């Protein structure tokens, strides 16, 4: 059976990613653990991304509120603005938008970093010196990304809700207490928990795709750029695919 070259390459890459993921898990469970490196990556991936995520979240909350207001005023349910914005941010927009920003920042940086290490043969040097490069470079980064994105999304949600509060107060006057109460009156566990769980998968996708692209980059400095670029594109697409799967699962479980 002969497949078109592009299709063949696509399936081959998918298989490679799957193999890479399997390798990640097998390495992840096996000691010794690179704890110090993991925390350093957490700091770089999580903490250093907070300003970007925070700013995006803030603007998103503010803009979403201001954009939703006219249509809600038209229906005479302006008082439901906090509820609507709260559900939109917590359920969908917060996790997805922040994961995309995260993919843009972290996916590309992991891809470029590992790619340049690969092309400058630092990874080979590591292997020679007795350090497990996969464990040291890939496992720590992927795991850090998986763990940090949920935290980032939570904080981003909080900042975003605050931005939305300011947005509500541009045209009307709502006390923070009332706004807060309205948001949480209309939220349920079924809104928060699935959204929180899917952010782990988003983080994992960003980390694993960035690492795969970097680990398999080739052809010199050109390859580094390409792997960084494709890391962002593929992880972004993967985020949407995961989101689609997540919504199907939550719907199946009856959380919607």
């Amino acid at each position, binding site marked *: 059976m002969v497949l078109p070259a592009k299709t063949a390459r696509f399936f081959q890459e998918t298989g490679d990613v799957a193999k890479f993921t399997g390798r990640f898990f097998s390495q992840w469970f096996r000691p010794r653990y690179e704890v110090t490196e993991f*925390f*350093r990556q*957490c*700091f770089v991936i*999580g*903490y250093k991304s*907070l300003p970007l995520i925070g700013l995006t979240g803030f603007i998103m909350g503010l803009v979403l509120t201001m954009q939703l207001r006219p249509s809600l005023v038209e229906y005479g*349910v302006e008082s439901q603005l906090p509820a609507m914005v709260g559900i939109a941010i*917590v359920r969908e927009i917060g996790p997805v938008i922040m994961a995309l920003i995260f993919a843009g920042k972290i996916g590309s940086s992991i891809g470029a970093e590992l790619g340049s290490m690969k092309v400058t043969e630092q990874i080979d040097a590591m292997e020679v010196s007795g350090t497990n490069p996969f464990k040291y470079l890939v496992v720590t980064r992927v795991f850090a990304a998986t763990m940090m994105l*949920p*935290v*980032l999304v*939570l*904080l981003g*949600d*909080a900042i975003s809700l605050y931005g939305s509060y300011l947005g509500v107060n541009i045209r009307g006057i709502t006390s923070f207490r009332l706004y*807060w109460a309205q948001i*949480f*009156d209309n*939220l*349920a*566990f079924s*809104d*928060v928990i699935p959204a*929180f769980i899917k952010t782990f998968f988003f983080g994992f996708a960003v980390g694993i795709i960035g690492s795969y692209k970097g680990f398999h980059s080739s052809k010199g400095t050109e390859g580094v750029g390409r792997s960084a670029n494709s890391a962002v594109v593929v992880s972004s697409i993967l985020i949407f695919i995961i989101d689609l799967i997540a919504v199907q699962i939550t719907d199946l479980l009856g959380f919607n």
Partner: protein
Amino acid sequence: MNKKISTNIKLGIFVLSGMVFLILMLYMIGKNQNLFGSTFELKARFRNVQGLRPGNNIRYSGIQAGTVKKLNILNDTTIEVVMLVDLKMKDYIRKSAVASIGTDGLMGNKLVNINPSGEPGSLVEDGDVLSIRKPVNTDDLLETLANTNHDVAIIAAQLKITVQRINNSTAAWKILNDESLPQNIHSSVAQIRTATAKAVDMVNNLNTLVTGVKEGKGSLGAILRDTSFAHNLNEAILKIKNVSEDADSLTSELNKVVQQFRDESMNGSGTITALLKDSVMAKNVTKSLDNIQKGTEGFNEIMNAVKKNFLFRSYFRKREKQKRNESVQLPAIQ
């Protein structure tokens, strides 16, 4: 090394703040669903819950008091709503309270309203079943509105006919077009006004009269106000009654006498009849009376002679003196 510690501290703060927000969010949601904090159960049985769902709010007199825990279908016409109510509300909700299904706003979520009925009752206990009020159903509302609309349509049709008739009637338009009519009405009204003024005067006079009578002025007033007069009147009436009774008996006596007299006259017996019927006797009697008169005159002469006689003069003088004394003493006594 110092730099590493500081990065770890920053990372720690970052992760912790994220976790704190997550826990806060979950707690807030849980608090709204009464998962934390102490609650107790109340039940109410409805025929139709109109889309109420677990998690919908319970309001007691408009205050958020809890959430719906679950809905049990007991049988084909009864649905039991199990409510989780805040324990703080246990001190206020009475067994006589009434539950009803309402809507949050016009289009909002369904909720259960618990309202006090105003009747006395002990405080609720865990698992009590509250009585219900039939919920206002929008369908019923619309049905009623449809009926009302129908009625309004009929009324409008009738009104249309009435208006058409008025429009077609020449008499009505004649009245409306008659320009002298307002003038006449105006003068009539003026006359009515003077008549009313007079009536008012009359009423005023009557009023003063009545007040005067009320205050006891005038003879009528005296009669009406004087209580002793009534007493006297009563006595007089009593006396009149007695007199009339006496008169009654007298009449009956008289009647008897007359009866007797008549009987006797019929029979011709008895002295009186004899007297009446015997003309000779009447003559005799007349004669006797004449004689008696003569006799008396004679006696009178004799008596005068006696008075002048010396033998009896002193006696008569004494008598006269005594008489005079008595007549002088009598006024002194009075």
